[in-house]
C-alpha cells in the first residue's frame, strides 16, 4: 500500500484509534441507538482493531451516578435513564398494555423455569394456559421459542428475550430477583408427582414431561 505511514511517522492508517477515542465512538453509537447494541455490532462500525468491550467498560464507569447509565442487556449494551429520575419523564411514559394475571404469572414461570414447556406452565399454575396468553407474550417479544425438548412429542419450549431483560432492567436472566433462593428451596425443580413413573426409574431426565397428569392420576 502506498499510504502506509502518516506524516508524523508514528502510525499507519490501520492502527486502532486510542482508547479515549474508541470510548467516544461507543458513546456516540450507544446514544444514537434506542435498542441495545452488541459488542460485535460496535466493532463492525468502529475502525479496525478497536476493542469495543474495553471502551464500553470505561464508558460505563464514566456514567456512574449520572442522569443516564450504560447498562448491559443480555449480550448487548444500551444507555438508559437512571431509574430514580423516572418521575421527570411522565411525558415519555408509554402506556403499556395491562397484562392479565395469567400473563404475568406465565411470564414469571417462563423466566424462572426457562426453557419451559407449555405443559410445565400448566402444571405449575394448575390450569390450562390459554392460547391468547402465550400469543400476547410472544407478540410483546418478551418470550420466544426455545429449543424443542428432547422428550416424547418433542414439545416446544419458551425462553425470555433480550427485550424482556431490557424492559425489566436485567443484565441477565440469572439476575432475576430471588432466583437463587427459589432454586435453593427446590422450587424450580421439576418434581414428578409420586407414583407417576410410567416408563422406568432410570428415565429421570424425561420425568418432567410426565407431570401433567397429576389430577387424572387414579
Amino acid at each position, binding site marked *: 500500500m502506498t499510504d502506509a505511514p502518516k506524516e508524523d511517522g508514528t502510525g499507519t492508517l490501520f492502527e486502532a484509534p486510542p482508547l479515549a477515542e474508541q470510548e467516544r465512538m461507543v458513546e456516540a453509537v450507544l446514544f444514537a441507538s434506542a435498542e441495545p447494541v452488541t459488542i460485535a455490532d460496535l466493532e463492525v462500525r468502529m475502525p479496525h482493531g478497536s476493542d469495543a468491550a474495553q471502551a464500553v467498560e470505561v464508558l460505563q464507569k464514566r456514567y456512574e451516578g449520572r442522569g443516564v447509565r450504560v447498562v448491559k442487556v443480555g449480550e448487548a449494551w444500551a444507555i438508559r435513564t437512571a431509574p430514580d429520575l*423516572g418521575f421527570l419523564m411522565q411525558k415519555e411514559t408509554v402506556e403499556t398494555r395491562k397484562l392479565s394475571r395469567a400473563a404475568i404469572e406465565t411470564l414469571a414461570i417462563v423466566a424462572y423455569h426457562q426453557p419451559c414447556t407449555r405443559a410445565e406452565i400448566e402444571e405449575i399454575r394448575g390450569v390450562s394456559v390459554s392460547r391468547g396468553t402465550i400469543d400476547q407474550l410472544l407478540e410483546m417479544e418478551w418470550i420466544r421459542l426455545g429449543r424443542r425438548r428432547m422428550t416424547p412429542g418433542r414439545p416446544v419450549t419458551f425462553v425470555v428475550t433480550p427485550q424482556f431483560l431490557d424492559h425489566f432492567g436485567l443484565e441477565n436472566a440469572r439476575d432475576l430477583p430471588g432466583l437463587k433462593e427459589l432454586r435453593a428451596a427446590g422450587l424450580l425443580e421439576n418434581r414428578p408427582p409420586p407414583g407417576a413413573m410410567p416408563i422406568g426409574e432410570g428415565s429421570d431426565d424425561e420425568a418432567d414431561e410426565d407431570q401433567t397428569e397429576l*389430577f387424572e392420576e387414579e
Partner: protein
Amino acid sequence: MNDNLFSEDPVSVADRLAAEALIVDVDGFEGPLDVLLTLSRTQKVDLRKISVLALAQQYLAFVEKARALRIELAADYLVMAAWLAFLKSRLLLPPDPDDEGPSGEELAAHLAFQLERLQAMRDAAARLMARDQLGRDFFRRGQGEDVTRIRTVTYSATLLDLMQGYARIRTRDEFRPFVMDRDAVFTMEQALERMRPLIGFAGTWTDMETYLPEGWDADPVRKRSATAATFAASLELVKEGHMEMKQSESFAPIQLRKRTET
C-alpha cells in the same frame, strides 16, 4: 399433618364460612389449585407445614357448598374433589402393606410442594412487576438517530470470466453436431426472407397462416414463434409499401395481399 390424622372432626363452622366466602367469587379463581392456595392461607402457617388433610376437608366443603347452591363448577374442580377425597382416605387409613402405590403422605407432600411452588411463582411475578420498567421508570433514547444501513451490491467479473464466457459460446458449435437451441424460434429476419419472394404472387386476400413455413404449425410453440415472426414481417412489408393487410374483426384471420397500385 400427623396431628390431624385422627381428628375426625367434620368440617368446622369456620371452614364452612370460608367455603361460603369462596363461593361468592368462584369465577375469580384460576382453577382448583388457586382455590387450594387461598384456602391454605386460613391455616396461617408456612406452606411447608400445611395440613393437607385440613385443606382437603376445606376444599370438599367448598365443593359441597357450591353444589348445594347449585353453582356450576368446572369439571376440574370436581376431579380435584375426587382426588382429595381419595387422598383424605389414604391419609386416614393405616397403610396397606400390599398397596404398591404412593403413600398418602407422599401425595400430600407433593400437593404441598405444588402449592408452595405456585405461591413462589406468584411472589416472583409480583417482584418482577415491581421492578423498574423500561418506559415507566427508566427510558431509552427518545430520539433515536438513524443508524442507517447502506447495502451496496457489487458484481464481480474478471476479464478471464468474460473471455471464457465468450469462448464457451463461440466454440460450442465446434463441439456439437447439432444446434438445438433455436429449434423453436422463427425470427423476423427469416420470415421476411421467406415472404419477400412470396408476396409478389398474392394478388388476392390470403390468410396470413398460409405464409407460415412448412412444418412449423404442428408444434404450438413453433407455430406461435412462426406466426409472430410472420406477422412482424408482414407489418414491415406493409410499412415498406409492398403489401396490404386486413382483419374483419377481432380474432378473425388476418389477410394479406400484394399492394396493387404502384
